[in-house]
């Protein structure tokens, strides 16, 4: 874990994923800005219905995603030491934490949809469902990417010398995590 390669490239992973990440972050940024501006004009409505959300679930989900990002870091550290088995295991562990996130979020959706809440209920719920669901889909995509990297790791595609794919997949996953770290306080906490 402490091995340092002085000539490490920047940014890590494939440049293409960074262009993709930038584009994805722009979509989220616009969504967040739209949320913020709309909230400004509907503070009471937003505060009232924010109460109906469950911050504990969201907190657990935050922990799940941060943990998964830590696992991805461990996976990268493992492959840098040519430890393919370790890398693969950490990647699957990260995927599993993604699964935990999906399960908790699904339970939250089940609760709200069970109460008859949908996109047309009011502006707050429109944003809540849209933002979190868009992010939900990204968690699924991120898990697919991590799983693909894990499978390729097992097939011996990566080594201490060449593991761009692990960095690429990891970069995307950290983006998914990072977006949640903004989404969580913005939608669940900030009053």
């Amino acid at each position: 874990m402490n091995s340092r390669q002085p000539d490490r490239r920047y940014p890590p992973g494939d440049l293409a994923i960074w262009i993709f990440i930038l584009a994805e972050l722009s979509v989220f940024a616009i969504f967040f800005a739209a949320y913020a501006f709309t909230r400004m004009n509907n503070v009471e409505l937003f505060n009232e219905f924010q109460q109906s959300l469950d911050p504990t679930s969201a907190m657990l989900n935050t922990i799940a995603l941060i943990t998964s990002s830590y696992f991805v870091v461990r996976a990268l550290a493992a492959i840098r030491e040519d430890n393919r088995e370790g890398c693969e295991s950490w990647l699957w562990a990260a995927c599993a934490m993604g699964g935990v996130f999906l399960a908790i979020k699904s339970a939250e959706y089940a609760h709200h949809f069970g109460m008859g809440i949908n996109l047309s209920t009011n502006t707050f719920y429109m944003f809540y469902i849209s933002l979190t669901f868009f992010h939900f889909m990204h968690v699924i995509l991120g898990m697919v990417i991590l799983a693909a990297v894990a499978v390729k790791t097992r097939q011996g595609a990566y080594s201490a010398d060449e593991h761009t794919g692990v960095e690429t997949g990891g970069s995307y996953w950290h983006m998914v995590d990072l977006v949640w770290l903004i989404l969580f306080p913005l939608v669940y906490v900030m009053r």
Partner: protein
Amino acid sequence: MQYQSQSVAKLYFIAAIGLFVGQILFGLIIGLQYLMGDFMFPEIPFNVARMTHTNLLIVWLLFGFMGAAYYLVPEEAERELESPLLAKLMFWIFLVAGALTVLGYLLVPYSGLAQMTANSLMPTMGREFLEQPTITKIGIVVVALAFLYNIGMTILKGRKTVVNLVLLIGLAGLAVLFLFAFYNPANVVLDKFFWWWVVHLWVEGVWELILGSILAFVLIKTTGVDREVIEKWLYVIIAMTLITGIIGTGHHYYWIGTPEYWQWWGSIFSAMEPIPFFMMTVFAFNMVNKRRRNHPNKAAVLWALGTATMAFLGAGVWGFLHTLSPVNFYTHGTQITAAHGHMAFYGAYVMIVLTIISYAMPILRGRQAANSNRSQVLEMWSFWLMTVSIVFITLFLTAAGILQVYLQRFSDTAMPFMVVQDKIALFYWLRELTGVIFLIGLVVYIASFFVGNDEPEASVEPTAE
């Protein structure tokens, strides 16, 4: 030409160019009808001429896409086409069905055509762009299925490249989404809702995959840049296209009676639709700058770069202009829409078809890689004539649209539609004149196929500069 069966593409390309001429002639007719309402009345009224203009465009682009697929799929899959005979047969069926449909539009009143073709059995007619009689629509499905079988089998049995797979996904999506043309609910909100699944999800969804894969193919061939690099770009571009384009359909759902959240979804996602087009521009110029060799077919490279630039401007920038719902509240259905429509269709889809024709046609006609210098120079003239014309048509229509929005909708003393139409007539005249220059560009384009054929191929030696 590496594979004999690629030659079927030639038929498709020739038909595409022929129908292109028809489209432009009808465009000039409706352009004039904007100014002289009874021009050619009652023989060809405006609604019929407009329908012919748009339908011809769609059909010739489809011919172009099919030709492109028949040309590039065997080369990518490294095997002959599954059935060249089927490809030829479908060509004639499609061409005859298309010709009969257009004749039906022109010779019979539309309601009569509906009666003749027993539209009441399965009503699908009467909706913009999907005006074709039901029997023609069924024909389109048959042709599409045979076509997909043909290239699908070629791809599955051959080398699987990203270019081929993206193209196949795009073409399959095109066929599947067309099925919504048969869904014609009585509820007008639902009708419009699913109508856009054909119209929007074609041009801002699956067609972009077709565009991306054809562009990638031509860039691989003309720049010699590693396939891996180009394929990576293609992946990122199509992912962004689908993320923004699918939910971006919402920018058509603002005023048709759908729930309010579409205002947000449509605005946010469609505002991002220029991103994949911008990536395409960066991608194309990057690849050409990094080229490993100079390809003798300079015209094809020019068309490829032109596509990447004009698609971004027409589809991306001009689309963004009126995509946000508070803006669209004023601009909906004005000449701003027409401005966007012209530059987007030309920049993205007309130009990509002309790109692949420019690349493939010399080879299909027996050249090694490129036409003679003389022919290419003429072709490049046509590129500039048509492209500059479309830029000006777009600018004139944009000016007309801004004026229209102000006079008719924004001003405190709003004027009626027809009064405003008179006030913006100057821009319609300018548009019509520019349209004539476009037609001249098209004639020059066709002429480029007939000149310099007895001269040697252009070479890449510096002396050729």
